[in-house]
Every structure is written in structure tokens, then in C-alpha cells.
């Protein structure tokens, strides 16, 4: 990675830490340069020049014009969340629900694909961290159910942030018992089918 790319990545990382105070705004990206451990900024301070945030032109040049810059920041924030999920000792669900404003922004775009992709990434990462050993159709079913639970919890958090964790817990519990119930139903249906097959065979209809 070149020095230029490293600097850009560094600025983006600093900007994600400013999301709490400035939100997903170009302002957060502009102010990221103020926290850069950069020799030049130290020198300019010594020259009695005030350290200035990046201009709008500079933000557009580095991160994209208009909403593209905000989207870049959101994706950087979400990527950081997923890395944090992998490396942190905190329960994954705490990290899950910390990403709510980003999910909201992605959902409100005219294109729902970014939000769906993000939900799938979270589900895949969560399944991997929990050492899921499902195979074939169960693999997909597990991830689809996790993605659905995550999306529901994020949307629930919009209206009732205080109950979001308990809502997520109930969904996760419900999903595992639902899985158990579905397996039982499948088994019972299999028995019923075999029974009827046997009955029809004994009557000479099959």
C-alpha cells in the first residue's frame, strides 16, 4: 500500500472515531486531518497558523462528491465494526447494535442492496465466530435467519433503543427454538408420510 493510500486510510479511520460527535457527515471527514499525527501540522502550529479542517474540495477529492463521501465513511465504519466483532472480547450483539445509524442510512437509500449486503456480512461473520458447522441448505438457512434477526433488531432500535438488546435476545432464543421446532415438524411429517405410504401399499393402491 502506497504512502498516499495509507494516509487516506488513516484519515478514514480517524473520521470513524469522530462519528459519535459529528455523525456521518462530511464534517467528520474534514476534521479528521486535525487529529492526524502529522509532522506538518505540528510545524504549522509552530508557525502560528491555525490548523484547519480539510476544505470541501479536499474532502470531495479524497472521499467523493456529495453523499458519496458519507457513504465512504459509513462503509469504513461498518468495516471497522466487523473487524471489532472478530477481535473483541465483547459479546457480538453489543457490537451488532452499535452500528444502527449506519444501517438506517443504508436502508434509506433508494438502493436496498447495500443494507442487505451489510446484513449478510454481519450474519456470515457472526456464524463464523460462533463456529457454526452447518452444511448445505442449513448453512444458508442459518445465515438468512441471522441476517433477518439483525435487520429486525436494527429497525427495532430506531423506535425503542432501550429495549433493543432484549429484543435481539428474544429473537435469537426464538430462532434457535424455532429451528428445533422446524426439525421436529420435519421429522413428524416424515413419519406421517411413511405411515400413509405403508397404508396405501398394504391396500394395493401403490
Amino acid at each position, binding site marked *: 500500500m*502506497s*504512502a*498516499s493510500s495509507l*494516509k*487516506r486510510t488513516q*484519515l478514514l479511520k480517524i473520521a470513524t472515531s469522530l462519528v459519535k460527535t459529528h455523525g456521518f457527515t462530511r464534517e467528520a471527514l474534514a476534521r479528521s*486531518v486535525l487529529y*492526524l499525527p*502529522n509532522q*506538518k*501540522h505540528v510545524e*504549522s502550529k509552530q*508557525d502560528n*497558523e491555525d490548523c*484547519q*479542517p*480539510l*476544505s*470541501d*474540495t*479536499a474532502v*470531495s*477529492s*479524497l*472521499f*467523493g*462528491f456529495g453523499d*458519496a463521501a458519507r457513504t465512504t465513511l459509513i462503509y469504513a465504519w461498518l468495516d471497522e465494526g466487523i473487524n471489532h466483532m472478530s477481535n473483541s472480547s465483547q459479546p457480538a450483539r453489543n457490537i451488532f447494535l452499535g452500528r444502527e445509524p449506519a444501517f438506517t442510512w443504508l436502508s434509506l437509500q433508494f438502493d436496498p442492496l447495500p443494507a442487505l449486503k451489510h446484513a449478510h456480512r454481519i450474519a456470515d461473520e457472526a456464524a463464523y465466530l460462533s463456529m457454526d458447522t452447518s452444511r448445505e441448505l442449513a448453512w444458508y438457512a442459518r445465515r438468512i435467519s441471522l441476517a433477518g434477526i439483525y435487520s429486525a433488531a436494527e429497525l427495532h432500535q430506531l423506535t425503542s433503543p432501550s429495549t433493543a438488546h432484549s429484543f435481539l435476545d428474544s429473537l435469537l432464543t426464538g430462532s434457535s427454538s424455532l429451528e428445533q421446532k422446524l426439525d421436529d415438524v420435519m421429522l413428524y411429517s416424515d413419519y406421517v408420510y411413511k405411515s400413509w405410504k405403508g397404508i396405501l401399499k398394504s391396500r394395493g393402491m401403490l
Partner: protein
Amino acid sequence: MSLLCSGAIRQSATRKWASRTFIRCTSSYSDRDQKTTSFGFKTIPAHEKESMVKNVFDSVASNYDLMNDAMSLGVHRLWKDEFVSSLKPGRRGPMRCIDVAGGTGDIALRLLDFAREKYADRETSVEVVDINAQMLKEGHRRFKQTMYHNTPQVSFHEANAQELPVEKFIDNSYDLYTIAFGIRNCTSIPDVLKEAYRVLKPGATFACLEFNKVTNPLLGPIYDQYSFSVIPLLGTLLTGDRASYQYLVESIRKFPSQPEFAQMIRDAGFVTGKDIDGAAWNNLWGGVACIHTGVKV
């Protein structure tokens, strides 16, 4: 060193350029240490490029805008408008801008007008720098027709973009550096970029509008045909100077591609967006023109 002259020696037919000659030569060098550069499709000693480019622009200065309109069918105005509006001068307060190779003042005027009309900014200033006195004279004449004449908002300086005088163009002093349709005429693009980096403040932006490689496979052949057939012919008909316009067309083809130029900008120390259209550069009309930007961080 042996020098072979294969072309004809041309004499300009108009009253302005009757005494000027343009010699087209192909040359081969047995002295391998001599630094060479391109002049259109020709390779020439690097030290000769500056004077040859000067001759070209001395020749075209008085009809520069007419020729731009004829060559690009007026589209160059749209590109320049797009260039300036993407920079948003004045949005966050007065800016100190430097417009290099901006002799006729096209970009400078647009910067000042944009800041005034959009943000009621009458403090933004532009220093127009050009190596060619004739082009600066044209720019000065144009500005006399505007409200910026005799104000501190615009000034004109004759200087070499590769070696801006340090006493006049101090380190870390500008908020915006622009160069439009000029960098390809410089002998050493890295030197221009190095100077741009020097004079810009930390956090300031470098912006370059230049002709570039057409990426659209349908547009490419049409553009080539138009460039090499129509434009030199227009040069002959409108100004009587085919050779200068032939050079202008050839110099476009020799300019680095979009990713190559973005890398050169990074090599000078600037930080750019990703190496894709819409990030480190922004193609206009399929790459016929292109806006490259970089930030000094």
C-alpha cells in the same frame, strides 16, 4: 551528434507571425547522455522544449479562445465550468488561489465569478501565472472588461511552473492550485507537481484539467479522426499556422494516462482518492478531458 532534418521549413503567412519560423525535424542522437523529451510526437532535447512551446503559444495567443471554440465546438467552456464548480471556491470563506498556465484568465475569471455569485465572496483572490508574456497580456486585456480589474482579487505573474520564484511564491501559502490545459506543455511534469506541493498549504487542493485518454471504444476512433484531420486544418484556415495546432493535438496523445498521472500526483506527495474514475480523477466526455485532484495532507 548528427542531426537529420526531414521536414520542410515553414513560414507563417499572417501579419503577426510572418517573421517567425517553425522548424520540424526528426533527430537522432549519438550522445546518449542528453536528456530528451517529447514535443508532440517528436523527441527533442529537453532544454529546447520550453522555447518551442513558447513559440507555439506566442503564435496562438491572440486567437486562443477562437481556436478553442472551433476545436472543441465550444465544449471547452462546459469543461471549465465543470472544473471550477467541482472546486467550489469560496464555500468555506476566502481562498488564495494560484492558477498556473492560466494566461488568458479563463479559469481565474470563473473562480472569482463562482465565489462571488454562489457565496457572495469578494475576498477570494487568484494569482495567474504563465511563462508566456503574450498569453498573460491577453488575460490582462480580458480582465480589463471585468469588475476585478485593478482590484487585489487578481494579479498576473510571468513565471515558470517548474521553478516558481521562492521569494514571490512562498511555501505553504495557497489554498488552491489549478492548472488547466497547461501541464502537458511543461517539460517536466514531476517538477511542476513538486512546485505545486511546495506552494500549497497543508490541507489544500491541487486540481488539474487536461486532455486525456479516451476510454470509450466507440468515441476513441472518432475523436482521433477529428483531432488529426480537422483541428490542424482549422489551424490553417483560421490562423494560418497548421504546425502549432498539429503540436497541440500530438501533445495530447503523449500525455500520461489517467492512472499514470494520478500516480505522478501521488509521487509528488499528494494524497488522492482511489485509482478509479470518480475518485482520483473524473473523466469528462469519456476521457476527452479529465479532472485530476490531490490533497496536500
